[in-house]
């Protein structure tokens, strides 16, 4: 594929580095070195991504960097980096206890890089077809990684993910075709009719009915990846059965990427006066996911599956926020996306440590974590407090903005929203109590891995909850403006 302005640029970097790293780790003789390579590559990608924030290249017909995806690229690269650090120690432990074979480790790291490549591509793609390809690539990659343990459960989860994912792929593609059909009479045949930056400028003249139909398919197709109820089925099992770093990446990044794709198309529809407002659909699905996932929290016995449901819940909140729109709600949505990525991945780091020291994912077999592993226990508590939207952490701010701005406009929806959030909080803490408090249960071996990734995320969330750097704020506000 050709980059506009062929010389090496950060833009090329965010794509090339993972691609090369993937190839390398596939062939590297020493499988243990692949972990270090992984960290190195993600670090490089992070540098490129940060550079990208400052040197925005001109949008080409394939690639585009603007305020919207700039944020996401940086976020993705950062979480990918911290996760790779966590993953190094995690995978090491898995090797020691023999859950993974050397070959599967190599495969794992190759896939990790491919996933990074796919997500970055999806984020910077300016061409809706390319975006589609990238997201599907990401999906397939994660399917591979979910199935990596080769256990009965893992395979079943992967198979479920694969089938549902493929159907999602198909629907998304149909939506993309419809968009093209809508664009063609206006923009003219060929490549230009799939270039997002062109479409969004001309969308006003598109055939609204086609746009509507297209959005329905895109909503369902990409919504499957976002994990909105009732399209969520693959998500909990994929999170629960895959390696924990992948759970972190899934919740923290892939869901965001899919949602980002949805946002792009929402902007298209928003640009067309005659098309149906995407808001109501998104709000409905969002609230549905929120309430549904909140109730699902109560009967969970597997800690990772529980937090997977909490991801569905938060994706619901975010989708709702973008659905209701307006500067404040959009700002809150973006903030919530960012905070959720950081927090949820931090939680999955913690969960990974817990699962490894306790040797199980069953909540019933954990207990008194704050007694046996104070640091880990309180870290987990802090994470749950953050994800439950309690101050002074970042998610409280976004929830504050969403709810308060909604209630003045749509009181009933706000009540449902608050109800869902409350049920979710109650569900989370019901389980947290039995994990972190009470009589200690299970092994009390020390944790070898480092807490740095987890606490760096939590620190960021804490800081963001108290003080947000003005640059970031301006940025978010611009994007919120774009989202209309």
């Amino acid at each position, binding site marked *: 594929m050709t980059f506009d302005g062929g010389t090496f640029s950060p833009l090329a970097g965010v794509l090339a580095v993972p691609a090369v790293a993937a190839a390398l780790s596939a062939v590297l003789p020493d499988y243990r070195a692949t972990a270090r390579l992984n960290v190195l590559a993600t670090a490089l990608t992070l540098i490129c991504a940060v550079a990208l924030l400052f040197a925005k290249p001109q949008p080409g017909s394939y690639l585009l960097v603007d305020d919207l995806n700039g944020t996401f690229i940086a976020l993705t690269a950062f979480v990918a980096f911290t996760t790779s650090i966590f993953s190094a120690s995690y995978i090491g432990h898995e090797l020691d206890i023999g859950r993974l074979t050397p070959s599967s480790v190599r495969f794992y790291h190759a896939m990790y890089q491919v996933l990074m490549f796919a997500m970055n591509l999806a984020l910077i793609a300016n061409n809706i077809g390319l975006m589609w390809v990238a997201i599907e690539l990401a999906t397939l990659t994660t399917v591979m990684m979910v199935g990596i343990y080769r256990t009965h*459960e893992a395979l079943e989860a992967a198979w479920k993910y694969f089938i549902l994912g493929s159907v999602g792929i198909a629907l998304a593609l149909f939506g993309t075709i419809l968009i093209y059909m809508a664009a063609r009479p206006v923009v003219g045949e*060929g490549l230009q009719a799939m270039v997002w930056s062109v479409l969004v400028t001309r969308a006003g003249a598109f055939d609204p*009915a086609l746009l509507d139909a297209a959005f329905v398919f895109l909503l369902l197709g990409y919504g499957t990846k976002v994990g909105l109820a009732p399209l969520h089925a693959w998500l*909990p099992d994929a999170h629960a059965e895959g390696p924990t770093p992948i759970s972190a990446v899934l919740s923290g990044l892939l869901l965001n990427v899919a949602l980002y794709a949805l946002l792009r198309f929402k902007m298209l529809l928003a640009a067309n006066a005659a098309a149906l407002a995407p808001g109501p659909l998104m709000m409905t699905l969002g609230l549905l996911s929120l309430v549904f996932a909140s109730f699902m929290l109560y009967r969970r*016995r597997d800690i990772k599956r529980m937090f997977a449901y909490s991801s569905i819940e938060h994706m619901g909140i975010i989708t709702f926020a973008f659905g209701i729109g307006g500067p404040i709600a959009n700002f809150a949505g973006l903030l919530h996306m960012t905070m959720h990525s950081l927090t949820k991945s931090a939680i999955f780091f913690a969960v990974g440590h817990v699962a490894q020291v306790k040797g199980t994912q069953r909540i019933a077999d954990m207990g008194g974590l704050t007694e046996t592993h104070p640091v880990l226990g309180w870290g987990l508590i802090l994470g749950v407090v953050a994800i439950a939207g309690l101050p002074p952490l970042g998610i409280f701010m976004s929830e504050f903005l969403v709810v308060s701005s909604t209630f003045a406009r749509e009181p009933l929806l706000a009540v449902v929203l608050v109800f869902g959030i409350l049920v979710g909080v109650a569900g989370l803490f019901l389980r947290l109590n039995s994990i972190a408090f009470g009589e200690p249960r299970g092994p009390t071996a020390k944790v070898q891995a480092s807490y740095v990734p987890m606490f760096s995320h939590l620190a960021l969330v804490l800081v963001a909850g108290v003080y947000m750097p003005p640059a970031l704020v301006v940025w978010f506000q611009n994007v919120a403006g774009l989202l209309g």
Partner: protein
Amino acid sequence: MSGLDFDIAHLLAGSLVLVSLLELYQDRLYSLLNIYALHALVLAASVAWQAFIQDAPHLYVTATLALVFKAIVIPVTLHRIIVRLGIHREIEKVVGVGITMLAGIGLVALAMVVMLRVTQEADPLAREDLAFALAVVLLGLLMMVTRRNAVSQVVGFMSLENGLVLAATGAKGMPLVVEISVAFSVLIAFIVIGIFLFRIRERFDTVDVQALDRFRGERR
């Protein structure tokens, strides 16, 4: 474009829908596979015709792909798999054929209504094509949800995908069509002979999805 071109494209697309309905009607795996082969054949024809009237030579690739891969390779492979795994030939349905057919017809109607709401300036061929494509997609989905055997579900998915290709090729001058159709063929290859069936083969002696579903995640 001339009326004849339009009519032929229309005919082909329409017959694709018809064949999808035929698929719904089957209750033997083998006959289902044969019908699917027919489905792919019609698709190939339709794509080729599109290539001709749009004089877009790259579409011939897609057509050939459909012809060789979907109309021949896949059905044969599935045939072999059925034989090798000794899957029983019956198609286990969730609801009776009659109801399924009714639902199918309803879906076709729905597809028409949705697509024909499109205002007139979109060119008629594209409109009809899209309507048919959507119908095929919906019928494929219907097949997936009303059949229990993995094979018939796979077939359902594949005809769904045929619908997509029909839509893509019908969309005049759409880029990446070939790439997409290739990508999808790969996807299907994954599903059919892919690594997953292999692993599943190792563990279960059937690809009946229900056997997989016996594990539901929380049973530990």
